[in-house]
């Protein structure tokens, strides 16, 4: 997901301008010269200026290239397909899946699915992923629900404790 500086810079200009405009629109405190509108105005302007500087490549010379440490024996090259890069969105997608479904399905089942999918995506075989998906949710449930009394959703499969 390496974007050109021009793109991220211009995005920041837009974000900053929107923030400054949004801040400017806020109602002031009656009888006060400054209110909730000042800070977003300052921040938004600053962000937009930074965005401009980045888009024009100012300060680029300071950037140090990531100090990559090669591993002995050569690294296995990851497969590069068109859809391979989309895997990166799996963790946040799974978290949103949890938000959407946990209340209905309950913690244990939702968590088991998340563990199985994450584990498989990282290259585990089902012999590893399946027991993990069974045990990890129960362990986490034990710690958070029993010990720390976090009200986790019981759903269709409530735990006996």
């Amino acid at each position, binding site marked *: 997901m390496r974007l050109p500086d021009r793109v991220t810079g211009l995005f*920041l200009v837009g*974000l900053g301008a929107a923030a400054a405009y949004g801040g400017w629109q806020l109602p002031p405190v009656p009888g006060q010269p400054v209110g909730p509108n*000042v800070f977003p105005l300052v921040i938004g302007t600053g962000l937009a200026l930074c965005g401009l500087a980045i888009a024009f490549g*100012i300060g680029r010379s300071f950037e*140090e290239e990531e100090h990559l440490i090669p591993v002995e024996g050569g690294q296995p090259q990851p497969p590069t397909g068109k859809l391979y890069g989309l895997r990166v969105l799996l963790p946040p997608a799974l978290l949103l899946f949890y938000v959407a479904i946990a209340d209905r399905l309950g913690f244990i089942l939702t968590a088991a699915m998340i563990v199985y999918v994450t584990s498989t995506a990282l290259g585990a075989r089902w012999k590893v992923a399946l027991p993990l998906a069974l045990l990890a949710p129960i362990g986490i449930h034990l710690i958070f629900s029993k010990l*720390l009394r976090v009200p986790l959703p019981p759903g269709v499969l409530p735990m006996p404790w």
Partner: protein
Amino acid sequence: MLNTLTQAFALITTWEVIIAIFAASVYGLVIGSLPGLSATMATALLVPVTFYLSPIAAIATIVAASTMAIFAGDIPGALLRIPGTPASAAYADEAYAMTRKGEAELALGAGVWFSAVGGIAGTLSLMILAPPLAEIALSFSTFEYFWLAFLGLMCATLVARSSPVKAIASMFIGLLVACIGIENPGGVPRFTFGMTNLFGGIEPIPALVGVFAVAQVMRAMLTPEPPPIPRRRFGSILAGQWKLTKKYNWQMTRGNIVGIIIGVLPGAGADMAAWVSYAMSKRFSKEPEKFGTGHVEGLVEAGASNNASIASGWVPSLLFGIPGDTIAAIAIGVLYMKGLNPGPTLFTEKASSMYAIYLMFIIANIIMIPLGIIMIRLASHVLRAPRATVMPVIMLCCAVGSFAIGNNIFGVVIVATFGVIGYVMEENGYPVAAMVLGIVMGTMIEQSFVTSLIKSDGSVLPFFERPIAAILAAMAIGALIWPVLVWVWRKLKRSPVPATSAR
């Protein structure tokens, strides 16, 4: 004094605290030693647990876990050349070279021994520096607080190992995130887009968990798995460390001092301390040609430095609520949660709690030696845990932990969102630490800024009128224009070269 000390002892000698320190130490050692799981992430995932502990036990877990995790990062650094935490990256090459020479024991022993020494030195600095600074800080008005917070944010951008413009942009993004909610001078909903869940603002802790933990799982999706550590038997770990201490006494002290200074600077943490100290050690060494070939000198200095910065990072956190680094930013969140609101009065009103914190730092650094040695011996077993079993558990902890903070499912949405934001920013060279500091300090800096403006009736002049405010302002503005000066200087120096080559 003696009375508060006995009170402090009483506070930490409860079973709850002892178990908390021990469990958090083991947790910190394991997470810290797993490549890709940083000390900041270990601490952030611990916060939901601290929610349910007593104040002292909660702080104890943070102190113990962060101290251990910074040391434990040395273990895979030395054995695999993959630093367990960013703070060990500076000398991972050197330590690995020593392992290849058959000196793994010496390298790891130096890691644990000088980390402990550095941690204790950092704690002493915290004990000595904080009370007198608190006296001065009592007379601070909003002007000084504004400049102090501003200086803190500028330091965070200065030390980032990327373009300062991008660091400043990250900081602004963080401040913008802090604008969300109704906690502003007018009490109006700001940038909430009509969502009730945003009225309370974005909590720093779920944002931190997202940026440091979820983003890391995302990165793991695309990077190949690190190789497992080869099994080996270790000889005596501590043998020869006393000799090293005597031989490199000055290097160790210098590392401690540099670590303390960098820790106190807001925004600069253990990784910066290690880089600076390692570079310094090489620059001033009598045998610089040995560096990079498995020479222990740099390890001594940088190892002492990164752990010293952990304790001294608490100085600005406890005094002003300005985090010394990202771990201290988490600690501040915990302090607020537990009713120990940072501020100079903390040292007079809650003196026994402060002494308890000092004592916990010292205890954590002492038990680090035996626990660290056990961890080194077990490393080849622990580090065999494949990523495909660790990362799913981290995912669950992210989901449950962020929910537990407010018993609000919206926390999980925040974690997921900030995971994406953190990942994209890091990929494009925007340092996330600067954004995190912006989020943590946003409310404070806005409050001091707007209150000051109201007091001065909209004029800027009073910002510079009080002596301490003027000094802080000069430093902050200096930090702001410093990168510009460097940039202009580099341009001037470089411009003749392409001109001649063009002909």
